[in-house]
């Protein structure tokens, strides 16, 4: 069965995610569901950095996988990997799990007025991007493609939430 499951991990705006399900399903030609399961984030908190270790969370997520093809955790908490100061999301290329944080996607974090629609757009792009990695897609250089590598929120805003035709074809091959 081809299935993507989105698991909120300390993420309150679940109604936002419900709006995204059909879009994600359309992008990956795969049924996409919201699912909840008990998951304690406290063991992954690093008090020195006041952040949560994304690598360790993903490793744990993989162990909770069920009948789905891919599982993607989504959280409001701030994520890091040991060598980087922050990340928007994380996935292992061709792996079964991905993780996305909305923590740094809010406009008010950068001294600007909060924009719920912009936040929602950014979140969707990050979800599709990390899921793309989990399906085996690498970063793309084609401007606008959702698989373009981004390290600033402004860069996320510059790209779309769709795959370029090359990534689309590659994804079709990877998922066939």
């Amino acid at each position, binding site marked *: 069965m081809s299935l993507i499951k989105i698991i909120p991990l300390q993420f309150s705006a679940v109604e936002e995610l419900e709006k995204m399900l059909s879009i994600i399903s359309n992008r990956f030609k795969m049924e996409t569901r919201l699912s909840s399961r008990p998951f304690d984030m406290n063991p992954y908190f690093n008090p020195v*950095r006041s952040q949560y270790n994304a*690598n360790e969370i993903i490793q744990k997520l993989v162990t909770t996988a069920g009948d789905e093809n891919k599982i993607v955790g989504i959280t409001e908490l701030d994520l890091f*990997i*040991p*060598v*980087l100061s922050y990340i928007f999301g994380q996935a292992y290329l061709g792996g079964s799990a991905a993780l996305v944080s909305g923590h740094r996607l809010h406009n008010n974090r950068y001294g600007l007025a909060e924009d719920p629609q912009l936040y929602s757009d950014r979140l969707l792009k990050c979800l599709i991007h990390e899921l793309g990695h989990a399906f085996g897609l*690498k*970063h793309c250089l084609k401007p606008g493609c959702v698989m373009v590598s981004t*390290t*600033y929120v402004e860069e996320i805003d510059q790209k779309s939430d769709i795959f370029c035709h090359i990534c689309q074809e590659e994804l079709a091959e990877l998922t066939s």
Partner: protein
Amino acid sequence: MDNNLSILVVDDELSVRDSLSNWFIEDGYTVDTAEDAKVALKKIEAYHFHIILIDIKLPGMDGLELNRRIKAINEDMIVIIMTAFASVDSAVEALKDGAYDYVCKPFDPDAITHIIRNASKSIQLSKENLSLQDRIKSLVNVDDIIGESEGILNVLEQVRVVAETDSTVIINGDSGTGKELIAKAIHMNSSRRFFPMVTVHCGAIAENLMESELFGHERGAFTGAQYARKGKFEMADGATLFLDEISTISMKMQIEILRVLETKKFARVGGNREFKSDFRVICATNRDLASMVKNGEFREDLFYRLNVFSIIIPPLRERVEDIKLLSEHFVKLYADQMNKGTRHIGKRAAKALQNYAFPGNVRELENLIERAIVIGSGDTVQLKDLPFQQNIDKPTWESIQDMEHHHIENILKKYDWNISQAAKALGVDRVTLYSKIKKYKIEKGN
């Protein structure tokens, strides 16, 4: 992103190695990791990494010393030092030892992305620089090849026709006729001209080294193979491979070459990894390969694989009208090189050159003119500056072959049968001189 770049991450923390590997793999780079300097050095000796990220604090040999060792092995490898804030001074020290840049851990995603992108650009520029340097060195324009005889014009027309194709070419001609020059002209007028022409002088490489020379070898493939090395097939990827004196290769090597020509795939000596290379082959010989096939000295299948397009360069004695143009060209070339005012060739000297058989072909003519410029004075090459003035006014031989025979005999006597010196004076190689001695049955006592 340049997907062909390979990155080695050296850090004793598994989580750092994993995080960075994953980060770079998503960008399409080839990534490997090492937990300490010892493992890193082993990997660096066995494989060429373009970029190496090193944590400054490593167990055993530290990052600074590892950077120095890497620079000693290959100073072109780009080293990026990863450090904590507390050890920035050490990172600066690493920069003085040739490291490309440093980053403080933990770093922002955009910081490492920018450093790697800049390093990629730097690598690309170095490659382009080398490629352009090689290109300038080997620039040969068809129009720059000297000659107006029917023979050479025919050759140049064939060069124009075949250059644009990707066909294999055999260039046949006596020693000194300029086979390599014609090969360069084909290469420089082909779509592969932005890459160098990789030349293999088959006759100059010992049989036991030929395999390694062509296919390369992995580290430890044989005694003395301390480092992995690319072979000529690998180096010619995207370029032209020129196999000079193809007739000299052994039957065993002929089989190997045929296989690679057909598949364009090969493995290095001592290795299992399969390499693919896109090269065009041009080969040259002064022997009749078809006769060699008949005599069982050259494989028929390889001959037909190579003999897609054949160019025969006529010897200089068959295109006498080119001697004047070539002589004038060499006079200008060597006079400029030696900062001399020589610009002309005297009538008697020109006549002597015109009447000479030139067994060593254009190479011999070039050597004669170079010698004349060295010993001559004034603005004109005189007959006395040439080594054969005594015969010019009283030719006693009927045919050009007779002339060649007696000239070789005279030169051998002059140098007391020292083959190396005689060959040098004649402007031919020793093998050619031996074959001429055999052909004319010249004996020492005569």
